[in-house]
């Protein structure tokens, strides 16, 4: 059983919801990411999504676009990102890490090499935003062989027929995109999310995390009532950007914010 599946099963037994924060690797500095990962884990994150920066983040809103630009200006490479996970794993063996990004940096690394290097570094899962299941057959074989869970997105526009394809292909958990839009958009429709979750659950027992547009304890609580987990990205990355020049304050603000999300979810 993968670290992700074990984690989510345990939470389910405890009747708890997964808190899944997202940060961009190498933002605001290369050496900030490992301390941030530890802070998130210590303050209640169950799984962490770590973004591989890309020059053309088509599915992301302005907050994460700027984070990617900062990280790339810092010279971050895919090797660096794997190095961060390796370093994090020296003292944390229990928090699953999911790498999230776009296909081209992985393709440039080489699928086989990437799968192997990621697994060796201690990565548990992958979300590749622009890799739909129809095009994923070959990569998934390699990721499966390396013990990496390939996590797929489901959107409000996804047809029932596609939902069945995606749930049959997905591993670890499903990531439901709560709104039509880019990351960090602000028009969350809770009822719409709940009704779609109901539809998805008819086809699968995989846990479902919901992301896009969850920005505080209250939205986390509302979404957490029906989802198995919530993903919080832009709100966190925005906070990191705000205190990018003051490491201690940044880490303490991130800690406070993570605690507040945890409390929201545990209510």
């Amino acid at each position: 059983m993968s670290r992700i599946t074990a984690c989510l099963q345990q939470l389910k037994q405890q009747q708890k919801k997964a808190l899944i924060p997202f940060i961009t690797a190498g933002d605001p500095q290369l050496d900030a990411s490992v301390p941030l990962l530890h802070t998130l884990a210590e303050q209640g994150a169950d799984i962490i999504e770590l973004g591989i920066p890309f020059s053309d983040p088509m599915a992301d809103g302005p907050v994460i676009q700027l984070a990617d630009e900062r990280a790339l200006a810092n010279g971050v490479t895919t090797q660096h990102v794997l190095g961060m996970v390796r370093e994090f794993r020296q003292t944390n063996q229990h928090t699953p890490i999911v790498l999230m990004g776009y296909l081209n940096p992985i393709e440039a690394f080489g699928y086989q090499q990437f799968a192997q290097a990621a697994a060796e570094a201690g990565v548990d899962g992958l979300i590749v935003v622009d890799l739909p299941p129809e095009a994923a057959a070959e990569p998934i074989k390699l990721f499966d062989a390396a013990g990496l869970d390939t996590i797929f997105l489901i959107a409000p526009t996804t047809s029932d027929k596609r939902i069945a394809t995606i749930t049959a292909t997905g591993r670890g958990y499903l990531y439901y995109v709560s709104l039509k839009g880019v990351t960090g958009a602000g028009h969350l429709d809770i009822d719409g999310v709940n009704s779609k979750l109901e539809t998805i659950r008819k086809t699968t027992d995989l846990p479902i995390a919901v992301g896009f547009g969850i920005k505080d304890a209250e939205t986390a609580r509302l979404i957490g009532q029906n989802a198995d987990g919530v993903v919080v990205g832009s709100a966190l990355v925005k906070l990191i950007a705000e205190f990018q020049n003051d490491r201690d304050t940044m880490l303490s603000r991130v800690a406070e914010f993570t605690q507040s999300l945890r409390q929201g979810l545990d209510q």
Partner: protein
Amino acid sequence: MSQNERDFLNTPDELGNFGPYGGRFVSETLMAALDELEEIYHKLSKDPEFQAAFDRDLAHYVGRPSPLYHAERWSRQLGGAQIYLKREDLNHTGAHKVNNTIGQALLAKYTGKRRVIAETGAGQHGVATATVAARLGLDCEVFMGAEDVKRQSLNVYRMKLLGAKVNPVTSGTKTLKDAMNEALRDWVTNVDDTFYIIGTVAGPHPYPMLVRDFQCVIGREARVQCQEHTGRLPDALVACVGGGSNAIGLFHPFLADESVVMYGVEAGGLGLASGQHAAPLCAGRPGVLHGNRTYLMEDGDGQIMHTHSVSAGLDYPGVGPEHSWLKDCGRVNYVAANDAEALDAFRALTRIEGIMPALESSHALAYAAKLAPTMDKDQTIVVNLSGRGDKDILTVAEIDGISL
């Protein structure tokens, strides 16, 4: 490989693949809209009424067929093959782009969506989109890199006069690729009521196929016209390649004609060796960007590189996937002309033939000027004069040190 080895005549396959290129690499939210577009296009492309409406608009609104003009004086000066210019510059709005926007606007009308969006580099596709939107009474927003807004201010104002909203894009390199990112972000947000009119043969399936189909009118006409002029098919075709829509439009109807040699001319910028160019087919490698697998300009880590070209319309790090396949198949030769060569050709055609070409098309002319002297006087080259140069006057004046 999903297709028969080297089969470039029956592309794409049902998944949108041109050999190993093309496909549909987008975020999940857009998959339904692309499925819908594919279904609508599949139906309408076989519908005689739709085709008749398209042909009617091309004849009476765009002004087709565009002439095939024998550039006799320039050919004589170059001292080799006879150069014929396919005059897409004479189309309504001044470039080949309108062939495609007419077609996609008819698709948009069929879907009932009231809003269209587009990305643009030089502004020609933006103008062509704003034009069809005005005619059909659709809301129109155009995304344009902030860098391009500066260097193509005339086209920006043209779009505004036509009633379009022009959104300068300040992310990334502030050019065409970033405009396309932003258009995709808008589309994902407004997918229910918005039709995305992509301007080139790139993007996720079915765009590379349908844009090609709409642009093929160029090559179909040129095929007939060349035989009328010379009694036979051309010996060579030359077209500039940014995303590659004018080139595929000219080339595609000739792909089965083995005697016809084809040259796609990329933007060599300051020279391929300088790294400052926009020539992925000449100097890049395959990767995935903007929904399709194709040759890209990328660094070793898969990050998309900054491109450079004097022409905003060619300043793009990718290229349509069908071109990638035609390159690998060896059917089309992809070459580059640099900024200086393009500017020389711009001046030459203007002074010798009284035709001012777009800087994009000037890259094709620059290569034709090299090719012609290596061929016999009774041979024929057809060059796609994809757009007119009025929009580039300020750029050329600035290079000349003149402020207008």
